[in-house]
């Protein structure tokens, strides 16, 4: 009689853990007000957005090309359960690329990372920020 409820409980927990992705994330974007689609002109016509995989994510700046700032992106990646691996900088980069794509950005520059640790809603959280830019030439 006692074994059945405990078994169901363990099973439910296992299903709960197995059903979760290894990470979940949040993001916040502060747009600069410039939109490549809206601000298109004859000199700078609308072009297809850079594919997500080709968006440059760098801790440095770009000095060999002119660019325009689209906005500042702040992302937070969290591990789903205590059993999952800690989020990595690659996870943060992927999330930054995802948000940059939504802004039609070509690159995310000046990227900085926090340190993995316990957060209010997660046993392992990693924070990242970057500036989304679009090339002018």
């Amino acid at each position, binding site marked *: 009689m006692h074994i059945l409820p405990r078994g169901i409980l363990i099973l439910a927990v296992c299903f709960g853990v197995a059903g979760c992705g290894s990470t979940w994330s949040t993001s916040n974007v502060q747009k600069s007000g410039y939109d490549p689609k809206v601000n298109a002109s004859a000199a700078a016509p609308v072009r297809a957005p850079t594919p997500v995989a080709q968006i440059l994510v760098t801790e*440095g*700046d770009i000095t060999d090309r002119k660019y325009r700032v689209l906005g500042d992106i702040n992302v937070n990646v969290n591990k789903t359960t205590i059993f999952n691996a800690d989020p990595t900088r690659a996870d943060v980069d992927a999330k930054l690329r995802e948000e940059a794509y939504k802004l039609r950005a070509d690159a995310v520059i000046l990227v*900085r990372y*926090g*340190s993995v640790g*316990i957060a*209010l809603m997660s046993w392992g959280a990693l*924070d990242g920020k970057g500036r989304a830019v679009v090339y002018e030439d």
Partner: protein
Amino acid sequence: MKTSILILSIGLVAVGCARPAPSLPSAQTIAPVQMEEAERLAACTAIDERLAASQRRTAELDAVIQSNRRSNQTIGYVAAITLPPLMLAAEENSAEKAELDRLQAERDQLYAKRRSAAC
């Protein structure tokens, strides 16, 4: 019971916390500084050397924080289940985290200089 939950909450907030990423610098336009080519090359080399040193130090500090991560998590799990005051045994690495923030601010200044020197 309520006391345990309170101690646990304080412990979670006080130890082993994630360090947030430092704020981005302001998006001001940096005007290029006019300088001779040789002077510009020397300035760029000096900036790049300082950037490399800053990144090396950052990697060292990250490794120190990361080396405590497993023990901090173990302490956190055990404390959450059995003994909340155990949270106080976790390593916060406050000094390392403060230095990481300082190094990021230094790199932001170096990137601005790099841009003004058109490196």
